[in-house]
Each structure stands twice: as structure tokens, then as C-alpha cells.
């Protein structure tokens, strides 16, 4: 495994298939795309981390408002810089793949939405989330009044234990009823 860079071993490939929701072709494609992101000398090194800037050049992530969060959540870097190894990258693709289960998708969705990484979605997270969803431009932004109402409505709906935040199980409860979450929480290379 020390030398991932050039080629994926057969055993490794089958293990990846076992461990992710990806098919062989998808893994190979992911590998190809990932190595394209590497610079020349990085290719020889095993276990390279690709910095977040380069990951975000992928067209699949480029226009996603949560791109930074996604990298951050899937990164295993100690420095919290959102850099991804190939396996982190596979993890990402697996969670966003077609066949990933609702449970795993909602888990990662929660982590992505949890902007301050404190394990719950509180008002600040929700506000950031809304701002992500409504885009950067001012004309699509909600007014503070609307924002307030929106957040209070959301909490009213999904905050079952009324502690002012949405925790993972509440989140999953809400998400599991949604008919189109699984179909929209998808990234395909």
C-alpha cells in the first residue's frame, strides 16, 4: 500500500469496493481524477494529501455552497486544513454515491451542516446554512426578519427535545421522512 500513487493494487481495489458504495469503475475513475490533482513529484509519494484549494477545482464541487465544509468533514488531516488523501476522497464519493444509505448520507449531511463542529445544529449553524443556500449575492439574501422567522420555524419543527438545537437523531428523524434527500445528496464524478 506504500505506493498508491501509480496504480491501485487488485486487492486494494476489491477492498475499496467492499468498504465503499462505489463500483470498481467508479473507484478507478476516482483514482484517476485524484491523481490528476497531484503535482508531479507528489505522485511518487505515497499517501499524499491534496490541499483543499486543489480539491475545490473539481467541477463537481466548484459550485457547491458547502464545498469547504465537505472537504473539512471528510479530511483526516491533523491540521484541520481540509486536505484530502485518496481514501478520504473515496470516503467522500462513497457517502455521496447513489447507493449509499439514508443513514450514512444523513450522518454526513449533519456533519456538513454543523459548521462549528460542536455536534449540534444551533442557531448559528442554521443561519450559516441558510446563507449558504441563498447564495452570496445580496438580492437573494433573506432579511434578518425572515431569517429569524425561518430559523424559529425550523427549530419548532425539528427540535423535538426543545433544547434550542437540532441534534443528530432529530436531524435524521427529519431527513428520513424527506422523499428527495437521498436523490439530491449525490455527487457523481
Amino acid at each position, binding site marked *: *500500500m*506504500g505506493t498508491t500513487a501509480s496504480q491501485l*493494487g487488485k*486487492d*486494494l481495489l476489491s*477492498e475499496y469496493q*467492499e*468498504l465503499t458504495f462505489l463500483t470498481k469503475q467508479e473507484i478507478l475513475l476516482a483514482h484517476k481524477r485524484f491523481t490528476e490533482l497531484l503535482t508531479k513529484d507528489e505522485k511518487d509519494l505515497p499517501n499524499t494529501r491534496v490541499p483543499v484549494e486543489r480539491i475545490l477545482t473539481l*467541477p463537481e464541487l*466548484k*459550485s*457547491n*455552497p*458547502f464545498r469547504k465544509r465537505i472537504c473539512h*468533514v*471528510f479530511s*483526516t488531516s491533523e491540521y484541520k486544513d481540509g486536505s484530502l488523501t485518496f*481514501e*478520504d476522497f*473515496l*470516503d467522500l464519493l*462513497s*457517502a455521496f454515491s*447513489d*447507493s*449509499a444509505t439514508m*443513514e450514512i448520507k444523513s450522518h454526513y449531511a*449533519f456533519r456538513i451542516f454543523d459548521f462549528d463542529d460542536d*455536534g*449540534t445544529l444551533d442557531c448559528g449553524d442554521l443561519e450559516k446554512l*441558510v446563507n449558504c*443556500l*441563498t*447564495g452570496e*449575492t445580496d438580492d*437573494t439574501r433573506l432579511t434578518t426578519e*425572515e431569517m429569524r*422567522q*425561518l430559523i424559529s*420555524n*425550523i427549530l419548532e*419543527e425539528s427540535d*423535538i*427535545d426543545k433544547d434550542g438545537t437540532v*441534534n*443528530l*437523531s432529530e*436531524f*435524521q428523524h*427529519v*431527513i*428520513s*421522512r*424527506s*422523499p*428527495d*434527500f437521498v436523490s*439530491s*445528496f449525490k*455527487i457523481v464524478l
Partner: protein
Amino acid sequence: MYCTYPTTHVESVTCGSRHSDGAVRYLSWVLVVEIEVDSDPSGSDDEGTQRRPNRRQGAGRGGAKGRGRGKKPPSEDEDEDEEDEAPRGRRPANKKKPAKKHGGGDEDESEDEAPKRKRKGAANRKKGGKAQDSDEEDNDVGKGKKGKKGGGRKGGKEAEDSKGKKGDAKGKDKGKDNDKDKKKKKKDDSSSDSNSDSDEEESLSEGEMARLMEEVEEKKKLIATIRNKPWRMKRRLLNLKEAQGFVDKFEGALGKGKGRKWFAYKVMMKKKWIKFQRDFENFRTACIPWERKIKEVESHFGSSVASYFIFLRWMYGMNLVLFGFTFGLVVIPEVLMGLPYGSIPRKTVPRAEQATAQDYSVLMDFQGYCKYSVLFYGFYNNQRTIGLLKFRLPLSYLMVGIGTFGYSLMVVIRTMAKNADVGGGDGDEGEFTFAWKMFTSWDYLIGNSETADNKYASITTSFKESIVDEQENQKDENIHLRRFLRVMANFLITCSLGGSGYLIYFVVKRSQEFANRTDLSWYEKNELELIMSLLGLVCPPLFETIAEMEDYHPRIALKWQLGRIFALFLGNLYTFLFALFDEVNTKLEEEDSIKNASLWAMKEYYANYTFMINDTDSTPPPMNPADIIRGPCWETAVGIEFVKLTVSDIQVSYLTILIGDFARAVIVRFLNYCWCWDLEAGFPSYGEFDISGNVLGLVFNQGMIWMGAFYAPGLVGINVLRLLSSMYYQCWAVMATNVPHERVFKASKSNNFYMGLLLLILFLSLLPVVYTIMTLPPSFDCGPFSGKAKMFDVIMETIDLDLPAFLGTIFSYAANPGLIIPAVLLMVLAIYYLNSVSEAYQNANMELKKKMQMARDEEKNRRNNTDSTNQVMKDLEDLLPNRSFMPPAPPSKPEKMPELEAKPTKTKPGSAGRGVNLQRDVTLASPNPNARGPVSRPPGPRGAGPAPGAGPGPGRGRGRGPPPR
């Protein structure tokens, strides 16, 4: 018991990777055994003593046995634990045995040190595998000598000792491990397998075997679900999986030496099957047409407009199937095998019409050659079978006609049921509107910045819209004024509906007058269609204007609007139908006389022929088919009416789009530069996409297709073309010329309202067709049923002639009213029963929901204060004896719980020690007196892990927060 070890994984990994899997594993087992013995001297004393010397001696035997036992602890722990344990075990083991042997492996050490444990997993597979192979030789040697060696070299070198052990362990491992590596396996089989397996068999008791099997099952389950665990670290997964895979394989072949191959085959097939299913699913989703187009529209105009296009696509699919039936079973057989054009009278244009039969205007009216073609009922012959294949065309025609309705009904109802299933769920539809908008509205597939901008806009609108919705629910104003206005609006609309009905009636009457005249202008000929199209054009906007008074929420307003337009269309359609029936009746009367005239003319012809030729022997040549006097063939007339209506409908709707939307958009866009006021923002502005009108147009059109398809098989083809073209045309038009609605609103998720309309119109169009089939006599000289008293006589004929006699009798019995009435009765009863059952379910549902709510409240209160609010529960709790022993809830609970909730999957498979910790945590946190803490756990380490669903007592589950649902 392992938690006491220091966790210096890196080191252990290093060592582990240096050696072959088997060795490491073995050593770890040895260690396990040692620990076990050390920590628990009372248990299995003799075994322990037996093992210890063994280990010292270096013979692998003790190890083998030790494994049987040593294996247990990891199995009892949760899976994650095991991987932790393995490296830990390795470290001390390595200390014992300096790495003399595998110096080659040392080079990798530094490299492997840096990455964490996961690396090791992979490395072991690849590199370790190789090392193993190279080791194989000496292992075999070692093994071969093992027995003697063990005894002989009691105080032998440590290195030699460990080698022997290793060899033994590996051999066994492999023997049981029917790995991917064929090579290895073969070797093992030859040498070590025989040796160790026999060893194994004798050393493992029944109970141990069973235990192992159980464990295997567990691992298997884990492996199947491993990808469902949202563990962040792949390395953990990988490690875990590797360990599992190893154990699984190792156990898999254990009990059943013979079934191994079969087992492997089964596993492989299962994998293949899953893969195939996945691929097929991918393929199926890739086959859905226009997904991108609709998404594009959706991103611009919101889901309501997109729902129209989705509906259109659905209609297209359904019509494609109908088209397949009609053309595959009726039209194409007729074209291929039926008599050609001009062979018999019904397939020939009459002499009087031949001069103009190819004129454009005539063809556009579907007269002339069009009328005498496969497109219409009259062209088909009443031969029982056609062609070499003896295709029973009349029967097939009738069956397709009925099957069209049957299929449509089935599809519509199935779709409705499915939609209700998806949308309804458990009645939570309205419960999470905001949360869903928030959490699920982003489409992660969007990879285009423009689309993303649209999505931002649409999400913003949807937020705003739902806020407006919410406010709408809360505001209340002058209710009397609104009521008055609504009544008023309904009155006005009823008036205009009545007016349009009368107008059509009037026009129909007039057209019957016109029918007797020949000098008709173009307007007079097409008056009916024109008026109907005009009404369809004028009335909906009128209704919309009136509906402004009502001031409903747009979604409700849309429904009202749809309902009203539907009523209008329906009135028009039925007026039209009644007019048509009148026409058919007159034609039927006419037909009788013509029938006689035709027969008479035929006789006359033959008489004349014999008279002229004066030769009674020679048979006269058959009369030219064009000359034979023909009946009016009312079926074809009806078919032509429907086709004309459909075509004019297509024309009108396309022209409306072209003029009303496109021309308007062009004018507004370009005249805006030189106009006195702002055209774009001011009066004409751009058009909005008229959802209700378009949906109803589609539904209504489909109704006409259903009605007309029986009399004009070609109509289905025309409709398919229409839907196909309008998909592209309207997609283009909506993107190019329309602006999003000012108040974008989300269509109700299930399109069941559209479907309901469709079902209604299907039923309404079913009635006249079935009526004509069952009651009216078919024309005597055209169509597949000519010469029969009723159309459905074809079925009787088939039963009589083609099926065995007893089936005929069965059918005659089945058609007996004495049987039918009880059957109907039975069905009614079944409906009643099912209805009441569903009601009961609903009640149960409500009850459960209430309970859930109550539980939630309870929970909430429990968090805030330890006291229960529910009186009953309180009483019950008072009765519990242990109440006073329970520690009070720590105040920090609310902060703590989310933390726990956030990573349930991580904590779940915690090691035994961790599991206990967690449990203690929970029990401490839970003020629930029901939870007696760890005492109530089943004994043995297996229970230590918080097995899902098997938690000790309900209290713990409750204490942990809202039950996962």
C-alpha cells in the same frame, strides 16, 4: 481486559507489518492466552498449564488450542475492539521475539511507521502476503519438524522457537483461510492443512465450534454492513474489514470442509447479483428521458412548472405503451397481412370522391384517402383471421380497445397509490416543510455555476414562499368580505360556465342544420371546433381574473382554477358527445336504407350482367369496389371527429404559445427600447407559464384520445407525436419566453391532483365508448365487426369456435346474473371491510403518534427535572423499589447528550472497556429508576457492548435521548 495496555499503536503496527499475518496473529493469540491465564488463574487451569509449557517449548500445539480459547475474547468484544487488540497484542509479542528473521521487513518499518494502523492493513495484504509466501518454505520445514523439535529443543533459541510457532500458526490460518490467494491455499492444502486441520478438529469441542460459527455469522453481518457505518476514518474501516475478512474466512471453512467451494460460489454469485442489480438500477435511471431538461426548467421556474413537465413525461410514457399495443396488435398486422387498399369496398375511396380524394383541403379534413386508411375503424375487414399466422384481427381489435382502458386505469391508479404512499408516509407531510427546505433542498449534483445561481434563487424563493405560507396561516382579516367575494366569484364562474355550455349547445344544433346543406363556408364547416377552442382560450383567463377576488393561496387557487376549467372542458366535451350521438343515431337510421339499397344494387348488377352477357353460366366479374353503394359508417365518422378535434387542439395550443408567449416576449423585449413606458415591468410584461391551463389541456386531450382511440387507431400515434413535440417545444418556450411566477410555489409533492383529474376524465371517457360497444350495432359494411349484431359478439364467436366446449359453458355460467350479483356483492363487502380496516389502522396510527408525542414530552421533562409529568408514570415510578438507590441526574446532562448522540456509531462498537464506560455514563446520566445500571446486564463480555436493541432495560434507551427512529 485489554484496556490496561498502553496504546502505542504505531510501534505495534511496525512490528506487525514486518511479519506475516499468521505469525502476528498467532503471537497475539498467545498473548491473549497469556493474559487470560494471568488475569484469571482460576479458570481453565489445566489448559493454561498445558499451554504454558507448550509455548515455552515452541511447539505450536498449545498455540492452536490457545487460539480456540484465545479467539473467544475478541469475538465477544465488539469488532472494533478486536482490531485494537491485535496490534496491542503484537507489540509485546514482538518484544519477546527480536526481529531477526525478517530483516527484509524492517526496511519498510520506517515507512510504515508514519501512517497509522490502516496502512498496516493494506500493507499486510500486499507485502505481508508476499513475505508469507517466501516464508512458506521454512515454515513447512519448521512444521514438519515441529513435533520432534518442540520436544528436542526445549531450551532452544528463542528465534527458532518463535519461528516454529509462527509457522504453525500460519499454516493453520491459511488452512482455514480460503483466501483470495489461490497460490497460498494450494500450498497450505498440501502441507500444513492436513496437519493442522486434524489438530483443529480434535482440539475444538462442539461448543467451541458453535461459538465460532456464531462469531462467523456476526462478522459476516458486520462485513455486510461495514459500509453503512459512518466512520470517518477509512483506516479504521480498512483495518476492521481486514480483520473481519480474515476471521470470517478462517471460520468460514471451519466446520464444513466440503461445502467450502459451494459456499464460496454462493458468496460470489450473491455479490454478482448485487452488482448486477446496482448496474441495472443505474441503467434504469439513466434511461429516464429529459431529466436534465426538466431539472433545468425546475431550476428556473420552481417545482410547480416542473411538475407539469413531469406529468407530461409520464403521459408520454403511458401513451407510448398504448401506442405499442395499438400499433403492434392492430395496425401493423393489418398493414402486413390484411387485404391491400382497393381490394374491397371498405378499403377503397368511392367513385364519387375519387376526384378530390388527394386534395390538400380534403386530406386535412381527414376525408379522401385519409378516411380509407388504417388510421380509421372503417378500413378494417371482418375476416376472422388474417394472414398465414391466422391472426384474429377483430378479436385483437376489440381486446386492444378494452385493454387500452384497462391499462390506463391500472397505471393511473397505481401511480396514484404510489404517490400517496410516498407523499403520505405517515401523515407527516406538513410537519417538516421548513426543515426539509433547509436540509434537503440543495441539489449536490449541480456542477454549473449558472444553475447554482438559479438554485440559490429558487431556494430563496422557496424560503420566502414558505414564510409567506406561514404568515398566511396566521393572519385573519375581514372574513365576511372575503366570504362574500368568494361566493360572488363562484356565482360569476357558474354563470360563465352555463353560458359556454349553452353556446356549445347552440353551435351543435346549428351544425346539425348545416349538415343538411352543401354550400358551406369554411367558418360554417369548422364552427364547432372553433368555438370550442375559443372557449378554451377565453374562459381560463376569465376565471383567473375572477379568482383574484377570492384571494386564495396560490396553491389552493390553482386547484380551484383547475377544477373550474375542468368543468368547462367537461361540459364542452359532453355537449360535443351528445351532438355526436345524435349524428350517430341519424347515421344508423340512414344505414338501414342504404343497406337495402346496396343489396339491391348488387342484385341489379348481377341481373344486368347476366342480361347483358346473356350467359347464365359464366360468373360475373366482381363489381368494382369503388362503385358499391356504402353505408355512412358512423364509427369512422366518430373517429374523424375526434382526430379533427385533437389536431385542432394541437394547432391552437401551439399557436397560442407562439403568439401569446413568443411574439409577446419578442415585442416586449425589443419594443422596450423605444416605448413610452417600461414594457417589461409594466403592462404587457412577459408571460407566465400557465400551469393549470396546460395541465388541463393535457388531461382533456388525453380524454379525447381515450374516447377516439377505439374508432381511430391512428389517434394514439398522433398523440404520441404531439406529446413528444410539445415536450421540446414547451420546454423551449418556457425557457425562452416565460418568466417565473411572481409567487413561486411548490406543487404539492404528489401529483395526485393531476392524477385525480386524469382518472376522472378516464372514467368519463370510458362511459361513451363502452356504451357504444355494448349497445350500438356496428355498421354493416365497414370495420372489423361488420355483420355482427353487437361488437362484443366477436368474443362469443371466439369462445364458441376456438376454445374447447367446456370453457364455453363455463363462460356462460360465469356470465349468469346469478353469479355476477353475488360477485358484486362480495366486492362491495370486501370494499367495506378494507375500508374499515384502514380506518382502524388510521386510528392506531394516531394513537401511536400521540404516544410518541407523550414520550417526547416525558423525555423533555426528564431532562429538565427528574420529575415525571405524566401522572400515571409517576405513580408507577413510585412503586418501583430501586428509586432511592439511583443517583440523581447530573445537571450537565443536556450538554452531554448531544455529544453522545453525535457519534453513536462510533461509540457503539466500542471495546468492552469503552462500552462499560459509556454505559456508566449513560446510567449516571439517566435519572430513570428503571435502569438498574450494569447489574442487569447479562453476564459475560458479549453483553458488555451496547448491543442494539438488546440494551439492559428500557430505561437506558430512554435516558440516551429520543429513541432513534
